[in-house]
């Protein structure tokens, strides 16, 4: 049985390959409840693949990933039960274009969790307020800016009341001036005690908010630690080279 003093997400020696290309070559990490973890690294180092394995969007060939003690890649597991606990936000927002902002948020709790519509709607309005999008309830995704769409996507995930939130390069497709509004939302979420796992290129954000930073390169974790150590005193030459390029 899992108890909150054990890692909420535990990866042990996770390996994955596409054909004969190894994306993940043995990744291990333990993430505690309430922690904010940033995964950084050069493009193509397997960051996105890694985060998508946590909710079972990608499968793995070897190793184990547990979420709240439950093995994610157990073939007997109903992945839909797992995904209720793990929310995910994507780089391209992936809102449902034929539904309004409010409907986007309401859909999953009503259809999947079968919760009463009135309760869900009240919660959805509160969430929209939380991400500072009051008044946009009836806007369609196409009528919102990238940053607004991304905040609706965050609210949509939160409406399922997950224990863990995964953010896959959520600011990478945004204009520089809208990046901030999304980061503020995530920061508030982290301050509320949500377990957040982010793949990001926002080094300033990682430095400020993360409890732990993982630097990945070519499918391996090269270096991990508190952001103050990683950013000011990187040990591995690859980390040094990467940071000197992006900072």
């Amino acid at each position: 049985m899992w108890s909150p003093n054990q890692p909420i997400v535990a990866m042990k020696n996770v390996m994955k390959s596409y054909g004969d290309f190894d994306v993940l070559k043995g990744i291990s990490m333990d993430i505690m409840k309430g922690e904010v973890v940033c995964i950084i690294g050069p493009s193509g180092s397997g960051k996105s693949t890694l985060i998508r394995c946590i909710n079972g969007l990608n499968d793995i060939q070897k190793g184990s990933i547990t979420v709240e003690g439950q093995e994610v890649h157990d073939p007997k597991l109903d992945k839909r039960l797992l995904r209720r606990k793990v929310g995910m936000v994507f780089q391209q927002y992936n809102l449902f274009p034929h539904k309004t902002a409010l409907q986007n948020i309401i859909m999953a709790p009503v259809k999947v969790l079968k919760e009463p519509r009135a309760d869900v709607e009240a919660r959805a309005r509160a969430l929209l307020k939380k991400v500072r999008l009051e008044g946009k309830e009836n806007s369609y995704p196409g009528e919102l800016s990238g940053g607004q769409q991304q905040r609706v996507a965050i609210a949509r995930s939160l409406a399922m009341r997950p224990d863990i939130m995964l953010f896959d390069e959520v600011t990478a497709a945004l204009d520089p001036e809208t990046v901030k509004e999304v980061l503020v939302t995530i920061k508030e979420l982290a301050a509320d005690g949500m377990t957040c796992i982010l793949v990001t290129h926002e080094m300033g954000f990682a430095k400020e908010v993360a409890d732990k930073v993982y630097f990945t390169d070519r499918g391996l974790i090269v270096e991990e630690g508190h952001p103050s150590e990683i950013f000011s005193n990187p040990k591995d030459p690859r980390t040094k080279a990467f940071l000197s390029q992006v900072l």
Partner: protein
Amino acid sequence: MASDIDKRGQGYPRRSDMAVLLPLRPAPQMDSLSLTTWLAKIRWWQVMLLMLVWPLHAFAQGAVTVDSAVAVLYKWAPFLLLHGFLFNVLISILSMALGTGLGVLLGLTLISKWSPLRFLGNTGTAFFRNAPWLVLLFVVLLAFPFELTIFGTRVPLPGWIKAVIGLSLPVAANIAIIVRGAIQSVPSAQWEAAESLSFSRMQTLWQIIIPQCIKRMIPPWMNWYAILTMATPLCSILGTEEMVTLTRQAMEAEGNKPELLMPFYGFILVLFFLYCYPIAKLTVRLERKFAFKL
């Protein structure tokens, strides 16, 4: 590392440190609007020209007989329209309804995750798309009994019902292709987003994917309706009393005079054209309207 370099040496880099732009795959090709595009290209003045040429041609054959032939047609026209052409329209509507229902089911088997079902669906689709329509009509005519016994009651199965079933089969197969194409045209990211929100596959399909692509299915669906309508005279071979059968009978009643051929068959042509031309125009317009929107 050595193996990397080998592979790159062959001009086929299998791994790269750089961001890789995947090849742009165009959305799956929808059924081309073959018939409607062709029909819609016809201009009104071309039709008018044809309407002029026809009487002139007939006139050249001998003015007096044409006069009487047109008079004969005038006598028969209401009957042919109401009992003939409208019956063709009824057959086409019922066939389309049945074909659409079957086609959606068949289309769903084409995207099934269970490979035996997908195989069956693919086989059925390929068979009904490529079999000649007339052959399918004959098979249905001969394979189905003239009446069915359902819960002890005898339900007659007249020829025209069999024609409806026979025509719906190739339509269903083509609609299945349209359904599959439309579903595959929705970006896979929509599936992933729904999956991450714990939607089941069926919920995702009906509540998220299909509502987004239903508009795209309408123009090719209308194209097949026009094709089907034009194919309904095939039923005359099965003895169904539709437009062509009745026309032939009317001409026989008038003594099978050769000068009747042009006005009577011309009348059929005009009616089908008047019915299908607006459908074709609308289809092409909708296609343009929906082409770039999701």
